[in-house]
């Protein structure tokens, strides 16, 4: 029984991949992501800690591109390229970990809110989700980060806690549909309890929504990290792309014209955020049959 279920599931992932490969925008996003992921993974081999230490950096300060380091150097003589590579590791780590947190919170809230709709627990969870959707969550994130203090774990926690609500709402809506399906009723008739139905029947059925929304959430999380870092709420010891922009800003990069210092980190944020969004949209199109049909028209 379970083997058959697994085979079916594996086959459905294979179909998804076949459809994804034909989605040009999704593939463009995926290729960009792979490039940055490889950079992030290889970062410790490509850049030594001393090279990005303001006190120990070997280069001459404020070299414009084309001279010794290909992308120039910052005020402390650190190579912009080195900082970008290290930044990819920090920004992607924060984005992915914060998203994992947000998805776990959002999926749990959505599953329970949907499954228990009509009962007090469902009403409370739905109200809580709606509340998080309405409040100025970026302001909340800023206030939270200021209270908790600047370190990497706090940044991750703050982003996770403030960006789960959309996932919860989508999962809830999907759970409401799945709850009424015959196979759920069949499981209940066979004696399955609420916990078993939620984890064995409903969760696998809403998993596609969670995956697609999760990929889109990474984009938001990376943007949020950048915003927090720009306001000086990032970890001062982790050189994310946002932190790079903030340092350039504080050094007066705009009025002094240090374009090679302030442009690249922003462009990297745009590329990665866009890539996650493209992949997320592609997954949504493939996994949501309603959208797939309209794509064919």
């Amino acid at each position, binding site marked *: 029984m379970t083997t058959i279920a697994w085979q079916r599931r594996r086959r459905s992932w294979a179909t998804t991949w076949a459809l994804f490969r034909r989605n040009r925008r999704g593939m463009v996003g995926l290729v960009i992501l792979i490039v940055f992921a490889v950079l992030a993974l290889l970062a410790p081999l490509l850049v030594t800690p001393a090279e990005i230490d303001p006190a120990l950096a070997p280069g001459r300060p404020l070299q414009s591109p084309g001279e010794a380091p290909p992308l120039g150097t910052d005020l402390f003589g650190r190579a912009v390229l080195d900082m970008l590579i290290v930044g990819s590791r920090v920004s992607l780590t924060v984005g992915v970990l914060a998203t994992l947190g947000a998805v776990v919170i959002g999926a749990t809230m959505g599953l329970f809110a949907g499954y228990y709709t009509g009962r007090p627990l469902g009403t409370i969870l739905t*109200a809580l989700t709606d*509340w998080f*959707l*309405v*409040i*100025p*969550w*970026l*302001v*909340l*994130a*800023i*206030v*939270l980060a*200021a*209270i*908790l*203090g600047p370190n990497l774990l706090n940044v991750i926690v703050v982003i996770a806690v403030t960006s789960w609500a959309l996932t919860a709402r989508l999962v809830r809506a999907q759970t409401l549909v799945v709850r009424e399906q015959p196979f759920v009723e069949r499981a209940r008739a066979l004696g399955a309890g609420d916990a078993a139905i939620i984890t064995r029947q409903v969760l696998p059925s809403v998993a596609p929504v969670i995956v697609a929304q999760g990929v889109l959430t990474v*984009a938001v999380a990376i*943007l949020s990290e*950048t*915003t927090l870092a*720009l*306001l*000086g*709420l990032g970890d001062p010891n982790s050189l994310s792309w*946002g932190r790079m*922009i903030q340092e*350039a*800003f504080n050094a007066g*990069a*705009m*009025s*002094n*014209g240090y*374009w090679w210092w*302030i*442009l690249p*980190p*922003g462009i990297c*944020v*745009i*590329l990665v*955020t*866009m890539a996650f*969004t*493209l992949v997320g949209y592609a997954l949504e199109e493939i996994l949501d049959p309603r959208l797939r049909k*309209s794509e064919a*028209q």
Partner: protein
Amino acid sequence: MRSGALDLRFVARRAGYALLTLAFILAVNFFLFRIMPGDPIALLARSQRLSPEALEEQRRAFGLDEPLFVQFVVYLRETLTGQLGVSLVSGVDVVDLIVSRLWPTILLVGVGTLLAAVIGVLIGIRGGWRRGSAFDSSSLYSSLVLYSTPEGWLGMLLLLLFAGWLGWFPAGGFSSAAGLALPVLALSLGYVGQYAIVMRSSMIEVKAQPYITLARAKGLSDPDVRRRHAVPNAVLPTFTLVVLSVGFILGGAIVIETVFSWPGIGLLTYEAINTLDYPVLQGVFLVSSAAVILAAFIADIAYGVIDPQVRQS
């Protein structure tokens, strides 16, 4: 069902909901600053060197030696009578501080949102109606790029370009009317993409509806079908998004105001972050939340007037 008339029961229900949300905000605002990593005075001690006696003195002054429940009642009473405490840094009343910074932010966020919404909707209409056209794919990609751009960085880019290289604007002193141009541009560019994407998918969805086919069958011209049948129906979801994104835009305004030294609530927040001025942060969170809830409430009512189905649900 009368359409267009304002159903009082509906308004009362939405008002009750808005008040409930506000009450929850009040509670969160209290516990956020008291329970999280200590109390406001412990937080204060992180930014300033204070002797243990001075800390204890401060704690008494803030009523922090009272039981939590008593503190909460005091907090509720003070907040509901419009007392939000004084700034730890300047000693100025938080309400006065926020009121003095209100207008620049309302101006920036108001003009920026309006501009982004109008342009975004126009782009979305054109792209969604002619899906796959050159205009559609180029506007979709530009929308995605704009959506993915950190707005603070976009502001810095504009400064680099217009103030640094072209010298059209002074790098500081953005309080004049002409100085509004760059911050508004940065803010609205950040959101135009998002609105365009939503309006586009809304148009695509509406275009597949039977009433559009019917309108065509009646012999209406393509622009007429679009203007009279598609756009009015497609604009509703975008309208909701615009209102709901006000909260998000307020967050964005903090960064934009910081980059441009625009003297509004956002810059006030930035200053409060750097000096760990918690009463100010608390006040900003409360006021911006209240503003967002009010916006959502007004949108709900407006939506109910436009679309009778909402009233019945």
